[in-house]
Structure formats: structure tokens, C-alpha cells
């Protein structure tokens, strides 16, 4: 079924099936995703996601900007983990152009990226519970997320679409207030996670809504190129931070939460447990934070990348980000392909939704955790 087929006057439906246009304006499609559903009662027979409502041509913009000028853009792809996309862009260019980064800057980047991962997961957790009809956890999560923003705001200068990393470092050093505030926050969030555990994880309604719903097997996940929590919920312990460590991640001890069932509950639990692991990473990074500069003495403005192609992977909150950079030696990238995790993660949706209920659509879509501007770029 295609949108054209739906408009085709000769296209007939049987007596008891109908089309439902879910989105692009719908409370639970998380942005501007449009799902064209063919339903029989409440049972879904077919699903066709229609994308591109927030396509801004980011890859085209990249071709027309210098490496430095493209810096604020990646954060607008996945606006919920902007620091990570920002970091990924810098890593890709630094690797290709051979720019060295002071160790303290890498530590700060990792601390901020992990904080951003927590805030992204918190927002997802709240929004997911709201999809399932529980409004209150949403606001608890926002309260916690607000603390993260309060921490990051003085350092990065923004609240959501951060542009903090610079080639060869970060824009601003962190201070003692940040460190003490962060330690207090870690303590507070651990307490909050216990509350969420009582309020949500053990809740019989929540478990019934998510268990055995939208099951993705490991083979299916591989066939569709899933990464991130969606893949780890299916029993595969693949995390770029472990498989191909970048930045200073090899120095930290952390676990990769893995659940084997592949259903919505497992994906939920993976993200929930990841928050604790991120806290662990932050704690270790704070303990070992080295002294020194956070940016090169002379800021890197003009980047020359030797001609050739480069690939850089990064673990964002939603999975593996891949930046495929083709350079012709000029000031601008010749081609910059962003492989975003949500794009592949969402592609499994039409298959997952077949023969589920409308209520499950929301549960499954929410558990995949897509950010539409990231998919549309």
C-alpha cells in the first residue's frame, strides 16, 4: 500500500478494513512521523511510515559549509542528544584531519555526552510512559532532566541544541561548581531511579502493556541494521563504546546492559539500566579528571582534511551514528553521509506492527525511540 494507492479512486477496500492516518500530527508519533495504517477493527494489517516532514537537507548543507561552520548543525539532527552528535562530528573531523585533543577536553566531552545520554533516556522514559497513558512519570523525568540542563547550561551555554565541542577541544572549561553539582545530581538521580523502579518497572499494568509486544529477534535486528538499545534489547551486546572505543572510553569500567527477549519491556529495561551505567562512567571520569588545557592554544578555524574517505562511528543515545566523510582536500566536505541510528531502527517498524493492536502501535513505536529530525536530516 502506498499513499498514491490510497488516493486512487479505483482502489477498493474490503468491507471491514479501513485506513487510518496516524500523524504527522498525533500525540504519540514523536514529532512528524506519519504512519499510514490499514486496519481491521483495531488490528493492524499493514503499516507504511511516511518520512521527511522535517527534512532540512543537512547533508547538502554540510557540502556547502566549512567543517567549522557545520558544527552547530549535527546537534539539530538528534536534538535530544545534541552533545553526542556534536562530539561525533568533532571526532570525525579530528580523526580525518589529525587534530590532537587534550586529555582533559576528552574527559569533559565524555562527562557531558553521558549526561546528555541520561537526559535523552529520561525524556524518552517519560514520553514512553505518557504514550502508555501514565502522565506523572513524564514530569518526574522532566524534573530530573531539568537538573541536567541546569548543570550543562553554564558550561555549554544552551539547554537543548548544544554546540559545545570544538575541533581540538571544548568551548569552555568546567569549574568546581559543575563538579560538585554533578556529584549531588548523581546521588539524587540514584534515589529517583529507585522510585521509577517502584512506580513503573514493577507496575503490573506497565509490564502487561510491554511484555511480549513488538518482539525483535537478534537475526531480525541484524537484518534491519538495528543498533543501540533496540539491538541490546534483543540480546546482542553491541555498543560502539566497547566494540570500537573512541575518545577516553577504554579507561572506564562499565557494563553494557543486555536483555534477551527483544520486546518493548526489554528495550525499556536496557535504557533504564544504561542510565545507571552512564552515572558510573561520569563518576569515574570525575574522579580521574586530569588538569590541563581544554582547547589548543591556537583555536582551529580552518580545517584541511586530506583527500580520501573516512568513516567514524559513535554511540549516541539511540545507537550507532556513522559519519562517512569524503574529502577532496578542500575547505568543505565533498560529501558527508550521516548514518543515523533512528533511520535503521525505524525501518523495522512496518514489520513489527503487522497483526498488533492500535494501542500496541504506540507502545512499539515508543520503545524504538525515534527522533524524527534525525531520520529526516
Amino acid at each position: 500500500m502506498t499513499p498514491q494507492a490510497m488516493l486512487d479512486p479505483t482502489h477498493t477496500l474490503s468491507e471491514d478494513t479501513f485506513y487510518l492516518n496516524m500523524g504527522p500530527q498525533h500525540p504519540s508519533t514523536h514529532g512528524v512521523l506519519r504512519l499510514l495504517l490499514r486496519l481491521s477493527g483495531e488490528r493492524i494489517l499493514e503499516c507504511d511510515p511516511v518520512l521527511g516532514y522535517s527534512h532540512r537537507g543537512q547533508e547538502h548543507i554540510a557540502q556547502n559549509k566549512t567543517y567549522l561552520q557545520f558544527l552547530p548543525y549535527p546537534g539539530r539532527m538528534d536534538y535530544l542528544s545534541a552533545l553526542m552528535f556534536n562530539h561525533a562530528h568533532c571526532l570525525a573531523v579530528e580523526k580525518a584531519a589529525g587534530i590532537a585533543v587534550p586529555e582533559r577536553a576528552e574527559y569533559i566531552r565524555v562527562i557531558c555526552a553521558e549526561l546528555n545520554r541520561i537526559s535523552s533516556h529520561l525524556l524518552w522514559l517519560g514520553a514512553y510512559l505518557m504514550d502508555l497513558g501514565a502522565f506523572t512519570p513524564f514530569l518526574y523525568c522532566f524534573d530530573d532532566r531539568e537538573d541536567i540542563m541546569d548543570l550543562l547550561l553554564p558550561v555549554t551555554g544552551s539547554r537543548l541544541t548544544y554546540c559545545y565541542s570544538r575541533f581540538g577541544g571544548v568551548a569552555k572549561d568546567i569549574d568546581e561548581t559543575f563538579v560538585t553539582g554533578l556529584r549531588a545530581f548523581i546521588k539524587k538521580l540514584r534515589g529517583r531511579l529507585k522510585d521509577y523502579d517502584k512506580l513503573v518497572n514493577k507496575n503490573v499494568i506497565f509490564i502487561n502493556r510491554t511484555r511480549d509486544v513488538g518482539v525483535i529477534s537478534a537475526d531480525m535486528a541484524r537484518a534491519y541494521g538495528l543498533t543501540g538499545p533496540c539491538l541490546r534489547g534483543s540480546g546482542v551486546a553491541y555498543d560502539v563504546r566497547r566494540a570500537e572505543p573512541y575518545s577516553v572510553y577504554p579507561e572506564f569500567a562499565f557494563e553494557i546492559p543486555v536483555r534477551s527477549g527483544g520486546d518493548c519491556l526489554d528495550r525499556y529495561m536496557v535504557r533504564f539500566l544504561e542510565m545507571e551505567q552512564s552515572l558510573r562512567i561520569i563518576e569515574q571520569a570525575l574522579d580521574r579528571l586530569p588538569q590541563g588545557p581544554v582547547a589548543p592554544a591556537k583555536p582551529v578555524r580552518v580545517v584541511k582534511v586530506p583527500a580520501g574517505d573516512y568513516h567514524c562511528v559513535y554511540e549516541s543515545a539511540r545507537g550507532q551514528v556513522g559519519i562517512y566523510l569524503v574529502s577532496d582536500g578542500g575547505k568543505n566536505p565533498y560529501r558527508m553521509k550521516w548514518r543515523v541510528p533512528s533511520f535503521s531502527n525505524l525501518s523495522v517498524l512496518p514489520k513489527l506492527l503487522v497483526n498488533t493492536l492500535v494501542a500496541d502501535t504506540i507502545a512499539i513505536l515508543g520503545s524504538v525511540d525515534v527522533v524524527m529530525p534525525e531520520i529526516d536530516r
Partner: protein
Amino acid sequence: MQGLMQSAAASLSPTVWTMVLGLVLSLGFVQVNALFLVWLERKVAAHIQLRIGPDEVGPFGLLQTLMDGLKLFVKELITPKPASWFLFVISPVLVFAPVLVPFVVLPFGQWLQVSDMPEGMLLIFAFASMTVFAILLGGWSSNNKYALLGAIRSVAQNVAYEIPLLLSAMSVVLMARSMSFQDIVGAQQGVWFVFYQPVAAIIYLIGATAETNRAPFDIPEAESELVAGFHTEYSGMRFALFFLAEYTNMFIVASVATALFFGGWRGPFADGPWWFLLKVYVLIFVVMWVRWTFPRLRFDQLMVFAWKYMIPVALANLLLTALVLKLVA
């Protein structure tokens, strides 16, 4: 002609006059009560969620809902073109009309009841189940797929939850040996029925929550799935009538619960309507507390819950009650 009417009026029994008076008073009470309940709901939700809630209009924001009502009052009434016009317009009226009738038999106090009918409880259940017709008509006539899905869900849900609701109420009726509210409250002279019938009380409260389409059983409107369910296409005062009916229904089921299980107007120190209202609002608070805590059940799980858990347990409870009563008597 005039003389005829006067004699007709004179020939009406005092009961009818009390009823008319009662209905007028109830109508006023319904409005004030709904305004208060909406305010309470928003305040409870806000404080559970670490927010302040309405705080600007009037003391503690008490007049906020009044202002919202006024806003809805002046809003444009939109009727979708493909809607079935007559049914679309009539269903908000239909949903609101039956919520007034139960006030005739609600026992606010020993002397504060419009009419104590011997079959008072039946009357309430009969009228409470009429809401579903209005929802079905409203959802269907909107000619909106979300509204239709909401209407279908509503019917299935109502059918499933009427039964445990009635079964649990029946156990109380067996104990009181009457369907009149005065008798039922009178039978709770010493001990409230909730202590004899805790299972029935819990089933009644769950069923009542489902009956009034309150979260976690709000699947007919299920905001995150069906946008706004059966009232997706309603705006302005028509929407407000659905809203008003929902909150009044909440008051009615809580009142019935109070009369059946919590001793009605009886309380320590001085019996009276204040005890009745206090108990009702405490029950409503619990219902709100539940709403702001739990996720929503899925449509089929709701059915499973009703048919596989609530109905068998309610039936077992009813049989046990009957058996014990037979043995004791």
C-alpha cells in the same frame, strides 16, 4: 385553559414538587460540583507532579475552572461536514441528561434525599449505563475514525464492567435486604459494609473507575492512541457537556460507593450530609490519585481483567455472601 393548568398543578402530589425542586437544586449542585472537581483534579495532579497547578484566578485558583468554562462557552461550535448532524448535536445532551436523574435518589442525609424509592439503586445503575449510548452516538456520528474506535471501545468496556459493578452491589443488597438507600445506610448502623464486604468494595471501586472512563481505564478517549477518542470532533460547550458528565458521573459513583460501603451520612459525633460529602470527596481523591499514577490498560487486557478476574471474584463473593447469610439467618 389557565384554570385547567392550575387545577392540574394543584392535583400534582407533593412528591412531584419535591422532585422538581430537587432536580433544580441538583442541576445547580452538578455545576458547582463539577467546577470544584475539575479544580481538585488539577490541583491533585499538579502536586503529585511537583507542580503548583491553577493558581492565578481566585484564591488558590479556585475560579480557574469557572473561567475555563466561560471560555468554552464562547467558543465556536464546530460540526464536521461529513458528520451526521442531528446525532452529533444531540449526543452531548444525551450524555448529560441521565446524570441528573440519579440525584433524585442519592442519600445525602437522612432527611436530605429527594425521594427514597424502594428500587433506588436499580435506578442509578440503569441511568448510569445510558451514558454509553451517548458516547456511541457521539463517536459514530462524528464520522472520524479515532472517534469511532473510541466509541466501539467504550461500548465493549461498559458491557464488561456493568456486570462486576452490579454483582458487587448485589452482595450489599443481600446484606441490607433492600435496594432503598435509606435502608442500606440504615443497615450500617454499627459497622460499615466495607468491613463485611472488602472484596465487593474494591471491585465496586475498580468497576466504577472503568464505568466512568477514568484512567487507567480511559481507553475510549486514550489520548496518546486515539487523540481524544469519542470526543475528538467536539468543541466548545458540546465538549464541556461531555466533560461535565464525566465529573458528575464520578460524583455519582463515589456517592453510591459511600452509601453502599462506607456508611453514607453516618459518622462519629454527628450524622449528617457533611459526612456523606467528606467520604465522597475522599473516594474521589483516591480515584484521582489512581489516575495520576498508572499507565493505561490495553483494550483487550481490560476485557481480560473484567471477565477473568473481576467477574469470577465478584460472583464468588456474592455466592459466599448468600451462603453465609443463609447459614446465619
